[in-house]
C-alpha cells in the first residue's frame, strides 16, 4: 500500500462517495456552532422545512458577542443580544446542546471543543469560523466553512469538498527558551506569506512542533488560515492521547472504557507514513526563530522583536511596495524604526489563538512581581472558557494579573474582533495575542501588533515591545 500522509488518512476515512471530477461527499463528525454565522443557516433549514440530520453531532456556544464583564446585566447592545438569543432559541428548537452564557463551560468555540473532548483525534470538524483549523492540533481534519455550508452540514452531516494539496511545514531542531508556538507560526507566515498556503492542507512537523504542548500546537494550527490554508494539523503522539485522557478540565465527550482502548489504537495510526509524499515542503530552522512582532496590517508583515520596521523602498515589487506603504501609514509607523522602540496603548491577552491555561500561565510568569507601565492604558486578560478561568483562579493567576494592574475578564472573543464592548479607540496601538492585525480589526482605525502572551505582557510592563527573554530570570 502506498505511503499516506496524515491528511490522506483523515480524508479517506471520511469519504462517503467519491465523484468523477475529484470532489467527494465528505462525512463530518462534529459541527461547532456560534451566534454569528449560524442564524441564517437555521433560518434556511426552517424555510426548506428540513431538520438536522444528526442533532448530537452539533455543539453550540455564544462567544463573539458576549460581554466579558458585568454579565449579570446581560448583553446591553440590543443587536448583539438578539443574535445570542437567536442562537439560544435555535439550539432549543432543534435540540442541540449549547453552553449558554451563564454556563461554566461557555467559552470561545475553538477552545471549548478540545476542552470538552468534543473534538477528538481522527475526526472531521467544521465550524462557521475560519479558525476551526485550531482543532487539527489533535490530529483531526478541521476547517472553517461559510454559513451555506453550516446549513448543509446541519441538513446532511456532509459537505461536498475537493481535496486540497498537501504541504509539510517542518521546523528543524528545537526553538530557544522564550520562543513559543505563536512565534513559530508567525515566523512561518512571514516566510510563506498569507497566501502561501492557499489550496493546501498543512501538516506541521519537526522537533519544535513535537516539543510543543497540545495547547501550543493549537496556537500553530489556529493560524494556518492566516497562511492561507484552510486546515492545519499535527500528528497524534503520546501528548495528544494524554491531553484527551486527562487534560486539566472538561473532556466530558471523550470516549471511555472499551471505546477508549479502541480509540487509542486507532489514533496511534494518525501520522504521515514514512515516505509519504507532499505536494510542497517548507522548512525552517527552529534556532533561527526569535520572538515575533507584526508591524503591518497583514500577519505576513512580521519581524523579530530585535529587528526594525522594514523600508518599502527596499521592495522591488510594485504591488507589495504600495501595500507596505499603505500599511505603515495606517499603523502610524516610520520605516526603519526599531520594533522595541514602539510604545503600546493597550494590551490584549486572549482569543482562540492564546487564551488557554498554558497561555495564561506564561502571561502570569512575566507579570509576576511587575506592574503595568504608566503609559499603558489598559491590559485585558480574557480566558478562553469558564473552566479555564476557574483553573487559573485555582492557581492564583488572577491575583498576579490584578496585582499587576491588569483586568481579569469573563470568557469570549472580546478584543480579538471587538464585536462586544472591548475595543480600541481610533489610532490606539495594541500588543495583542490574537491572530489578525487587519485594518480596524480591534476597533475602527485600531493598530494591532500580534505577539505571544509572554511578549504581550512584556510590552504591558515596559510600555513598549520588549524581547521577553531579557526579562526572564531578571525578576
Amino acid at each position, binding site marked *: 500500500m502506498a505511503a499516506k500522509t496524515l491528511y490522506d488518512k483523515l480524508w479517506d476515512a471520511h469519504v*462517503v462517495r467519491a465523484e468523477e471530477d475529484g470532489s467527494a461527499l465528505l462525512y463530518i*463528525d462534529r459541527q461547532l456552532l456560534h451566534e454569528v454565522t449560524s442564524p441564517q443557516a437555521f*433560518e434556511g433549514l426552517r424555510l426548506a422545512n428540513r431538520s438536522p440530520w444528526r442533532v448530537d453531532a452539533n455543539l453550540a456556544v455564544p462567544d463573539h458577542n458576549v460581554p466579558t464583564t458585568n454579565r449579570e446585566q446581560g448583553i446591553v447592545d440590543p*443587536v448583539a443580544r438578539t443574535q445570542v438569543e437567536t442562537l439560544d432559541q435555535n439550539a432549543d428548537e432543534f435540540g442541540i446542546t449549547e453552553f449558554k452564557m451563564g454556563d461554566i463551560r461557555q467559552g470561545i468555540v475553538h477552545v471549548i471543543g478540545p476542552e470538552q473532548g468534543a473534538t477528538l483525534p481522527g475526526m472531521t470538524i467544521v465550524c462557521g469560523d475560519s479558525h476551526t483549523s485550531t482543532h487539527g492540533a489533535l490530529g483531526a481534519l478541521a476547517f472553517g*466553512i461559510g454559513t451555506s455550508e453550516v446549513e448543509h452540514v446541519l441538513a446532511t452531516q456532509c459537505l461536498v469538498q475537493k481535496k486540497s494539496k498537501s504541504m509539510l511545514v517542518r521546523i528543524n531542531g528545537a526553538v530557544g527558551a522564550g520562543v513559543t508556538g505563536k512565534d513559530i507560526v508567525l515566523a512561518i507566515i512571514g516566510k510563506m506569506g*498569507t497566501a502561501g498556503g492557499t489550496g493546501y492542507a498543512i501538516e506541521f512537523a519537526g522537533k519544535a512542533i513535537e516539543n510543543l504542548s497540545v495547547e501550543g500546537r493549537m496556537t500553530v494550527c489556529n493560524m494556518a488560515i492566516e497562511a492561507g490554508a484552510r486546515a492545519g494539523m499535527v500528528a497524534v503522539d503520546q501528548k495528544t492521547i494524554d491531553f484527551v485522557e486527562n487534560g486539566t478540565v472538561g473532556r466530558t465527550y471523550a470516549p471511555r472504557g472499551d471505546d477508549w482502548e479502541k480509540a487509542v489504537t486507532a489514533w496511534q495510526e494518525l501520522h504521515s507514513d514514512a515516505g509519504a509524499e507532499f505536494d510542497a515542503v517548507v522548512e525552517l530552522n527552529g534556532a533561527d526563530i526569535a520572538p515575533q512582532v507584526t508591524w503591518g496590517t497583514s500577519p505576513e508583515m512580521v519581524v523579530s522583536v530585535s529587528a526594525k520596521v522594514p523600508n518599502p523602498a527596499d521592495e522591488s515589487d510594485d504591488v507589495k511596495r504600495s501595500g507596505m506603504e499603505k500599511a505603515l501609514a495606517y499603523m502610524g509607523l516610520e520605516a526603519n524604526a526599531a520594533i522595541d522602540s514602539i510604545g503600546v496603548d493597550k494590551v490584549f491577552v486572549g482569543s482562540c489563538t492564546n487564551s488557554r491555561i498554558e497561555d495564561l500561565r506564561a502571561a502570569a510568569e512575566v507579570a509576576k512581581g511587575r506592574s503595568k507601565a504608566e503609559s499603558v492604558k489598559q491590559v485585558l486578560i480574557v480566558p478562553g472558557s469558564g473552566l479555564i478561568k476557574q483553573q487559573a483562579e485555582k492557581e492564583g493567576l488572577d491575583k498576579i494579573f490584578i496585582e499587576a494592574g491588569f483586568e481579569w475578564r469573563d470568557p469570549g472573543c472580546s478584543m480579538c474582533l471587538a464585536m462586544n464592548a472591548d475595543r480600541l479607540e481610533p489610532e490606539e496601538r495594541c500588543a495583542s495575542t490574537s491572530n489578525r492585525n487587519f485594518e*480596524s480589526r480591534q476597533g475602527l482605525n485600531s493598530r494591532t501588533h500580534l505577539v505571544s502572551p509572554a511578549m504581550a505582557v512584556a510590552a504591558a510592563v515596559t510600555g513598549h515591545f520588549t524581547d521577553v527573554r531579557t526579562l526572564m530570570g531578571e525578576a
Partner: protein
Amino acid sequence: MEQFTQHSGLVVPMDRPNVDTDAIIPKQYLKSVKRAGFGPNLFDDWRYLDPGDPAIDNATRRPNPEFVLNLPQYQGSTILLGRENFGCGSSREHAVWALTDYGIRAVIAPSFADIFFNNSFKNGLLPITLSETEIDQLFQEEAEGCQLNEGYQLSIDLDAQTVTTPSGTAFSFEIDAFRKYRLLNGLDDIGLTLQQQDSIKAYEERRKVEAPWLF
C-alpha cells in the same frame, strides 16, 4: 440559488492585494440574523468618512469622495476587478452577501482565499481567476478607458468559460465541472446531497462499527 450563465457589466477596479473580509464587511454588521441588506455597508470603513453602525442610517453619513465605489463613473458596476488573495480572512459569508446585495455578480482576480471562493459559489457570485498578466492588462485597459471617460465593460460567458474585453480579446478561465453545472442551473446543494441519503446512512452504519466513540 440565482443562476449564472452570461453577464456583461461595468467594471470597478480594486487595486490592492489581500482585500480581507473585515474590509469587505466590517464586524459590526455581522450581528444581523438576516442574509439581506448588507450592500449599503460593503467596504464600509473605506466607503464612508464617519464610523458606521447598524443603528446609524447610512444616508446621514458622509461618503468618502475618493473611494472607488463612490466615484461617479463606477455607479452601477457589477464586476469587481481585484488583486491577489482576494477575500482572505474570516469565513463570514456576509462578505459575499454584501457584494451580491450591492449588485456585484463576478469578481475577477489572480487568486482568492479558499473559503471566500467556496462561499461565492453558494450565492451565485462567480469568482474568476485569471493570470497576473491578464489581470494587469485589465487594470490598464480599465484605467485608459477611465481617462477617456468611458466605462469599462466586460462580458462573461460561464458556459464558454471566457471573459471578453471591449476590444474583443477573450481570456479563458478554469472552473470545476460540478460547480459550473450548479451555477448554470442554479441548483440547491443540499437538495443534491440529500439524493445521496442512502450512501450517507451506509457510511454511518460502517463507522458505528469501526469508530463507535464518534456516535
